[in-house]
């Protein structure tokens, strides 16, 4: 056990705010940031690896390379990861351009079998220097015509200007798709890191109308990936994936529907209506599914017996919406861990302000959170909530867990029961990067 040798006199003040007094969408002022040790959320490396038979080449400084290289190492995918390190000399003349061209060329020339697709990752440095990325990509395509090159970005400095790095990655993930003839009655989920659950009512509905569904996490070959472009209809559910769906739909001239992940019955029904209209079919009656979800939640409520619940933003991009559902069904939601909310959360945030004003919102990156006293009693939904609450009772879930619609809610209710009944080793569980990916860590 490590001992603290330099006791640090820290503030005991928790930087929490009651939801009643919180500002939407960002309740906390920006400042220095801490990095809590919950690593289940995916990063750009995990997402890029979804393209089968692809290879990643990062061109950036050592400090930036280290995290992505070891992400690949921990997911046992170093054979799909290469890099070129920028040094200070590269800032001069055409050094940044040369590091891309010479680095990628050298790496690819060393490969006996060329990858089908190479994701070339640029960083903040090249963007600030005004490097002509399209020209570089053209030159790479000229040198290796048998390879599809996709420009990708690790540019956190620009995270508050335009698309976030996460959104941009999901956009570029489909950049290698080329127009193909439409395969009628084929739809594709776009931008999901985790495969969408097969048993959702929307999947059933599509199948019932003889639609085939494709999803990148299910693709096993590059050709299967390319055939996503045959889809007639593109579907997104996550806020971070919406730009990917919109941009791809425009490029391929396809229909795109954003059926946003939600926990609110009216919005679930509205999504189904939108889908049904697109399919020119009557919307199905979801009464049975809704009743089943309510029954599952009632069962979970009975098991949890008023146990305080905390939810973090990595478990679902709609923490306020989920909190509202749980509050409405009689659960005791006490804490939300988030630093900002997506626009879709506003009506649920306002509802909570009016109906559950004592819920506390806590930041995850605020410097004081490094020393914040832990609640220790809660059932947590999400790894960061589990860490901050120091509770072994948690739902280990990211990005909504692929759970969708009323059946997704019913499944989530079962996960709540399991979290109450089973303890998880917090540190060992949350230290692994990219929940759902292979990990070399024990």
């Amino acid at each position, binding site marked *: 056990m490590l001992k603290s040798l330099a006791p640090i006199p820290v503030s005991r003040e928790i930087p929490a705010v009651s939801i009643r007094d919180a500002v939407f969408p960002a309740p906390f002022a920006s400042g220095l940031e801490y990095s809590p040790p919950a690593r289940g959320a995916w990063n750009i490396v995990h997402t890029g690896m979804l393209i089968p038979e692809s290879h990643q080449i990062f061109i950036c400084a050592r400090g930036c390379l280290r995290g992505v290289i*070891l992400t690949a190492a921990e997911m046992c995918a*170093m054979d799909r990861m*290469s*890099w070129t390190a920028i040094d200070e000399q590269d800032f001069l003349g055409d050094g940044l351009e040369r590091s891309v061209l010479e680095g990628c060329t050298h790496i690819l020339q060393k490969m006996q079998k060329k990858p089908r697709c190479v994701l070339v990752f640029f960083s903040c440095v090249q963007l600030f220097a005004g490097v002509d990325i399209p020209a570089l990509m053209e030159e790479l395509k000229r040198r290796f015509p048998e390879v599809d090159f996709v420009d990708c970005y690790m540019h956190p400095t620009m*995270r508050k200007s335009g698309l976030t790095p996460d959104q941009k990655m999901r956009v570029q993930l489909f950049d290698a798709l080329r127009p193909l003839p439409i395969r009628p009655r084929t739809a594709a989920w776009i931008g999901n890191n985790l495969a969408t659950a097969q048993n959702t009512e929307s999947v059933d509905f599509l199948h019932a109308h003889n639609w085939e569904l494709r999803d990148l996490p299910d693709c096993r070959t590059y050709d299967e990936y390319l055939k996503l472009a045959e889809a007639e209809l593109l579907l997104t559910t996550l806020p971070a994936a919406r730009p990917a769906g919109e941009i791809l739909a425009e490029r391929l001239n396809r229909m795109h529907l954003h059926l946003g992940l939600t926990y609110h019955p009216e919005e679930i029904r509205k999504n189904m209506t939108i889908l049904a209209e697109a399919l020119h079919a009557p919307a199905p009656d979801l009464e049975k599914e809704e009743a089943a979800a309510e029954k599952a939640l009632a069962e979970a409520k009975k098991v949890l017996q008023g146990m305080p619940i905390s939810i973090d933003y990595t478990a679902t991009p709609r923490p306020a919406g989920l909190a509202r559902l749980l509050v409405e069904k009689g659960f005791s939601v006490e804490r939300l861990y988030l630093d900002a909310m997506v626009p879709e959360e506003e009506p649920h945030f306002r509802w909570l302000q009016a109906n559950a004003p004592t819920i506390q919102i806590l930041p995850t990156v605020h410097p004081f959170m490094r020393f914040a006293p832990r609640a220790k009693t809660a059932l947590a939904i999400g790894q960061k909530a589990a860490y901050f609450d120091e509770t072994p009772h948690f739902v280990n879930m990211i990005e909504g867990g692929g759970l969708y619609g009323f059946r997704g809610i019913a499944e989530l209710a079962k996960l709540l029961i399991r979290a109450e009944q089973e303890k998880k080793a917090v540190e060992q569980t949350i230290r692994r990067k990219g929940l759902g990916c292979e990990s070399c860590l024990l």
Partner: protein
Amino acid sequence: MKNCAKILSIYASDTAGVCSMLYELGGMTIVHDASGCNSTYATHDEPRWYSKPAMVYISALTEMDVIMGNDAKLLEDAARAAKELHPRFIALCGSPMPCMTGVDFPALAAELEAETGIPVLGLQTNGIGSYITGAGKALKMYLERFARLDVQKNPRLSVNLLGATPLDFSGSRQIGAIKEVIRQSGFELQSCMAMDSSPEELRDCGKAHVNLVLSASGLPAATYLKETFGIPFAAGVPYGEKFAEKLFRDLRKSAEDGQDRISCADRPAPEKEKCLAIIGESIGAASLAAASEESAKIFVPQALGPIFLQEQDSVFADEDEIEILSGKAGAILADPMYQPVIPAGTVFHALPHEAFSGRCYREMIPVLTGKNRESGVQLC
């Protein structure tokens, strides 16, 4: 091609070195960076992150702050956090974007210190250099600022350990074993810079008679302590028994005659080229070579700033060069992440190095010091 790899990992950066070296000293270390530096460091380079809290943060730099040269936000945020968290000192260091825009960290440090009244170290890092340079700069600057000049020598023969971070020594077990053998050999331990020692022990480092430089990141501090306090050093890690005995003899001699001794460089040249080759940080690898049962040479990555090399040793700039060098060795002892570039037919022995493979093999890192050392390397 230099700075390029098809499959190899990369060593930790200078910012990680700064954070690692200052971690236990009660300060607040701020990397002026947008996002990744802290999570990379906390995830892959810092085994103490979960169980031993320290104030290591990023400034959360944004595009507009970079374009507008808005350093004031960093200073305001740092001052606000320091007011509540009461660090003993603040360290500011930079990542690639501040390097590109020419942020002057010593100047920012002076401004922040004037504002807060808290000592501030301004470290001109850039996320491009290796952990060796960052850790080395950080320790030297810390001592320049905090080492007490008005100390009396310890009446007992005492030693400072320089250049100890988890990047080279992982968790506390390795450093614990080193401390134990030093004490068993009759030395009093003044400080270990900077693992498992208090800021007060470092502050009083001038009491020591001699320094033991455990890694290249300890060398700038050793030079400073020599110039300021006249404390000589010996360089090496007490691996095995025979080499540890030699190292401790050298330490005693240095304490007596004031001369520096590069103990780890005192190795016979192997009789044949196809001998064991050890890849790693200069002092650690050389110490293993010196302690090895069979004669050995070392291969040091250019990025780690090779020092104290002997004729038989080599420096490599990239993946291609280490592949060629390894083909000429009889066997290789290195981090497991080097294995993919070691030619088939060359015997490979794995010895994980946290600065290279992060936490991938952390549990496999053996203790190689003292009588209870663990298997993994044949040492005499």
